[in-house]
């Protein structure tokens, strides 16, 4: 029995080494090679937007120089951010892992509602759910159309752009459900903030 086991382990090691070359080098490097095709390479390297101002897949909350004149659309909260709101740590993705009965999570939700309500000049009850809950990755690039609408007036006021212009930019950055039924309607914050910046000139 022990001889069999020893012999089979030796065979196993030889096969493993061959498999390591095949599945661990040839396979991933071949896929990498295919991903160099123009049209795929941009996505393979992280969907970086023109000018290197971020990735359209990664949401990083922008920090205004003056909180009283905040020209940005904001992302969802990130569990890795320093405060209740603000940018998370892009180098370590993850969420809070807090359950619905957790006292700290309840406190976080209330604090976020108050902060956002103050920032946008609305009642805390008007703040939508995605604005006060941290995503699973901490890097969610999207917000709901409701949260975007909540921020439109402030962005228009601070940037001096007409409200209709801001609404049009939001509409441009909004995607319905993919193929009409997959997922949820979303507004891409990275792209929206860049569009607002470009519109200001």
């Amino acid at each position, binding site marked *: 029995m022990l001889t069999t086991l020893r012999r089979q382990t030796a065979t196993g090691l030889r*096969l493993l080494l061959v*498999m390591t070359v095949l599945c661990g080098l040839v396979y991933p490097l071949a896929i990498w090679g295919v991903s160099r095709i123009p049209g795929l390479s941009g996505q393979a390297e992280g969907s970086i937007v023109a000018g290197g101002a971020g990735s359209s897949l990664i949401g990083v909350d922008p920090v205004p120089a003056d909180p009283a004149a905040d020209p940005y659309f904001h992302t969802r909260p990130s569990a890795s951010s320093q405060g209740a709101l603000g940018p998370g740590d892009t180098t370590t993705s993850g969420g809070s892992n807090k359950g619905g009965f957790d006292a700290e999570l309840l406190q976080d939700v209330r604090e976020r509602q108050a902060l956002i309500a103050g920032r946008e000049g609305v009642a805390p009850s008007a703040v939508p759910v995605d604005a006060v809950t941290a995503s699973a990755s901490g890097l969610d690039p999207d917000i709901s159309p409701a949260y975007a609408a909540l921020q439109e007036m402030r962005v228009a006021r601070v940037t001096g752009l007409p409200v209709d212009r801001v609404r049009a930019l939001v509409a441009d950055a909004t995607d319905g459900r993919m193929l009409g039924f997959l997922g949820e309607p979303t507004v891409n914050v990275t792209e929206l903030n860049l569009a607002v910046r470009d519109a200001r000139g």
Partner: protein
Amino acid sequence: MSPAVAGLLQAGVLVLFLALAYKPLGGWMARVYSDEKHWRAERLLYRIVRVDPGVQQRWTTYAAGVLGFSFASIVLLYLLQRLQPLLPLAFGRGTDDATTVAPAMAFNTAVSFVTNTNWQSYVPEAVLGHTVQMAGLTVQNVVSAAVGMAVAVALVRGFATRGSREGDGIGRIGNFWVDLTRGVTRILLPLAVVAAIALVAMGTVMSLRSGVDVTGVDGAQSTLPLAPAASQEAVKELGTNGGGIFNANSAHPFENPNALSNLFEIFLLLVIPVALTRTFGIMVGNRRQGTVLLAVMGGIWAVFLGLTWLAETFPNGPAALAAGGAMEGKELRFGVPGSALFAVSTTGTSTGAVNSLHDSFSGAGGGITLLNMLLGEVAPGGAGAGLYGILVLAIIAVFLAGLMVGRTPEYLGKKLGRVQVTYAAVSILAMPALVLLGSGLAIALPGTADALNNEGAHGFSEVLYAYASAANNNGSAFAGITVTSDFFQTSLAVAMLFGRFVPILAVLGLAGSLARQRHVEPGAGTLPTDGVLFGALVGGTVLLVAALTFFPAMALGPIAEALS
């Protein structure tokens, strides 16, 4: 379109595509494992590793192959992690205190990936370089799935052999090296290549750079880590592995960029376990035998999906009520339906990838994902592991039915005597013993309370979930729990090892004992095992075994929370 209709359509499209793949993939896999011919490339490979592919093995030799291959895999993967600073594309990871993979963590991770668990106690994008990811983890994602499929096929052969009275072929269940190789060369790798390219086209990253620096609209600089994700993502789902190349796993936009890739990944993690029931039906010469098992799997999956979706749509926790919904730990692009669909599929297979944080699910929603694993992961189970898991439960069901009517039980033309039922019982009892002993021990230790992220019943669920995930080789987590202590690293590694190899040894022993038997034609007293009645019986057995074993533990955790 209302969210509910969209969610139903999404689940419907998933089922439709699984149905389309069922016959061709199931039939292809049956041909792969029955083919007398070897491909030229395979013959070359057998020559290199010095294997005679013509040899038919007894179960003991087959099992020694499984153990030997897995042992070699654990050693190599451990060494790759420990020697990371010497490898290319390591980006300095592993050179300082923050990123060095300590022995306990390296052992835990090695065991985790070799046992098809992919439990992760490390932060991938911070700790592991691309060489360990590709040459270590991606390799195990492929071969550990192929091992599970080989074991399942060996068991099916045990049933399928007609059994000669004497001669050399008696009690032989195949050649492990051939089954393992073909699982890779003819099933997993070809599918993975297509899936990986499709994922890149959908937006998953595939980069050999360590990361990219960006400057946001506010002028703030940040580094976005990159990785060879698409190749690993494809096989992570196809092989029901689940280990993310990023910490947030399939919630990370670089792994799972949009709702389409989300549905595609769910399809990938279900397709092999689902199609294997077809392979089984073909190999035992009666396709309806496979359809019955698939119906049991599909029934449990559909009910659990409905329950999780409902629980997450109407959460009961104060924090979720204050926020206005259960979006903590969920990505907006997937929403509740896309998250529930992924959660039920990943815990019903042995995948354990996550696109949302199960720890943040409501009591009932998180409880269902936990229960899904505690059923033994048969809805539809891991690649191979799901099929042999449900076949063992079917044997128990036939045995129970035999007891009720007082006849010698037989299944697929093979008599189920003391030996077979003993093997089946060992296979079934290993996981509950590990879960309950492990959770009990952890709770009794003084340090555990500090490792928990949530209070009260939910904190207990974190411990129970950890051991359920390890012993079932799932790998998902109520991830708030801190499992980096030596106790957790070691005890969870032990749970993964025994949870994988005790059932595998029992199943191979069972296969050997069945292969030695002659086929008997069904008589008047034989329970038909290809109809609705038997399906209900197997489904009942699955639920009964889990309920009797786990009700007290579930009552302390998720049930208490759901009723709060």
